């Protein structure tokens, strides 16, 4: 259980680091009135790039969680 919790927290941490800090990053971007490129970045990140990232984190978590469970099951049967 502890390992699953740690794994969950790591995945959640990655999510927070990736998405949770975005508003701050956007706030730091230059004013789009000066540089039109920065508005485009925001659209691309929020509109498109966010979703594949979510799926990848989710997929990674499932693989790790199932490995943890197999290890735990092996230990119970072995001991």
């Amino acid at each position, binding site marked *: *259980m502890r390992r*699953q*919790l740690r*794994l*969950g927290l790591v*995945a*959640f941490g990655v*999510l927070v680091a990736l*998405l*949770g800090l975005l*508003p*701050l990053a*956007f*706030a730091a*971007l230059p*004013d*789009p*009135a000066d540089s*039109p490129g920065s*508005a*485009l970045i*925001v*659209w691309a990140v*929020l*509109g*498109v790039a*966010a*979703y*594949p990232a*979510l*799926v990848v*984190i*989710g*997929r990674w*978590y*499932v693989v790790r*969680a*199932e490995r943890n*469970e197999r290890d*735990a*099951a092996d230990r119970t049967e072995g001991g």
Partner: protein
Amino acid sequence: MNQAYGIVAVSAAVVATLVIGSTGLRISRTTSDFYVASRTVPPYLNAMAISGEYLSAASFLGIAGLVAAQGVEMLWFPVGYAAGYLVLLVFVAAPLRRSGAYTLPDFADSRLESRAARRVASVLVVGVGWLYLLPQLQGAGLTLGLVTGAPRWLGGVLVAVVVTLAVAAGGMRSITFVQAFQYCLKLTALLVPAVFLVLAWHGDPRPAGALDEPPAFRRHTRVTVETTVLIRIEAPLRTVVSGAVDGRGYDDGRLVLEPGVHEVRGGTTLRFAPGTPVPERESGDGRRDGASSWAAPLSGGRDDHPLYTTYGLIFATFLGTMGLPHVLVRFYTNPDGRAARRTTVIVLALVGGFYLLPPLYGLLGRIYAPDLLLTGTTDAAVLVLPERLVGGLGGDLLGALVAAGACAAFLSTASGLTLSVAGVLSQDVLPSLGVRHFRLATLLAVAVPVTVSVAASKLPVANAVGLAFAVAASSFCPLLLLGIWWRGLTAPGAIAGLLTGGGSALAAVALTIAGPLTGPLSDGWAHTLLAWPAVWSVPLGFLTMILVSLATRDRIPAGTEAVMARLHLPERPTGQDAPPTRRGVTTP
């Protein structure tokens, strides 16, 4: 929009829902079948059903409308809706499935061994469910009114009747197929027109830059304002008016509006020449309704503290998803915990794929349907775009397809919500008498929100979706996370946390929705804090739950160790554990 095609398309969606729903009737004989499809739904089908159920009218129509009106900041809504599933996956999915409970109150009951905690959770589930049903029914009224010309209340009532029939007739098994079908319908209904729209946009001889601001009318446009609005004008603007502007009546009179704020009376028709910039709408109290810095993040529309608002939205959507009753009940239909996890990843992909489309409609809506910005009905952007861009027979057909998809959107979410609210009502509120009572509960579950939506059709219920998320995030999120991962949770702690977290979020948003606040709450920080309560109410819920649990440490349930083991250990390969006891349900 061609009404004949629209009526045919909407009727087809309704009939398909009822037919697929009724085929389940023959299969579902026992109570267990009825509630959770006897837990034999394969992951991909279940994932499609969850996605179909989750993508509501708010996703299908609302996001495009918000993006068109308020810009890139609103993209946080779909991102949050999708990311909520990742949080659900890593903390809740598998243990919740293994808990063997049917509903959130069941979970509270089996984890905390407390009838009182169960009752509090039941009340909150019903409350969140009704809050979420309200905007679905109103969205139905808007769409059906636009497509068929029917009065507003009729759409809500129609959807309520269809949902009651489908849910009461077939229960969960048939709903699973209905929802999966509706995911496909919704995706098709946005994807196919989107392809044509992009082609038409590409082939436009005078393509406008998507991020240009302010937007301008592209051809001679007539705009009829339904309710009185204030508009802000930056440069002198020529228009032809039938109706009343600034208290003076005109009949096809030419008018040059000077820079400043003008009042356009409800029912007035304005005509604009091509190239005229679209006037900006002002909300009643002088705050800007926010088209000015549309492409930039953190321009935040009308709120004063955009960074805080963004985090309020992130908190509510990331953590609120796991507390939505209609989402959770679907996880019990997975065969085991591993399947629950895999289902969630598929859901992430399906929902994320869907959310690529609404922002596109928002962008195009701003270019080709700028009059919606003036009338304030930007939710209709998705529905009117095919006609505007493609036109002719093709435009009519695509418009009909979109209308059918919108219809599927509120049908599926409304039926999922109805099912879970009715499940809780029949188990915990009405004495349990099996399937017959479930049907009675369905009626009750729909009747209350329908009555409210018909009675209060002018209420700004678009906020109700945010409210439902905020309340769910501040009450059920702490209950689930602590209940699953912390041995020290006690029943008094859980009850206190549910009441403080959920109660304060409910009170805060109810205050903002209730109407024109006066005095110190109407503006500035106090208003922002009340309108986006999740940032403070979620930690409040957690803190209360932890502190009260620590104070009542002697009341940790005796069976905690056993329950925790069941939550976190994988099922036996055969999956033939003794069924856990469920009060109020006759297990066959």
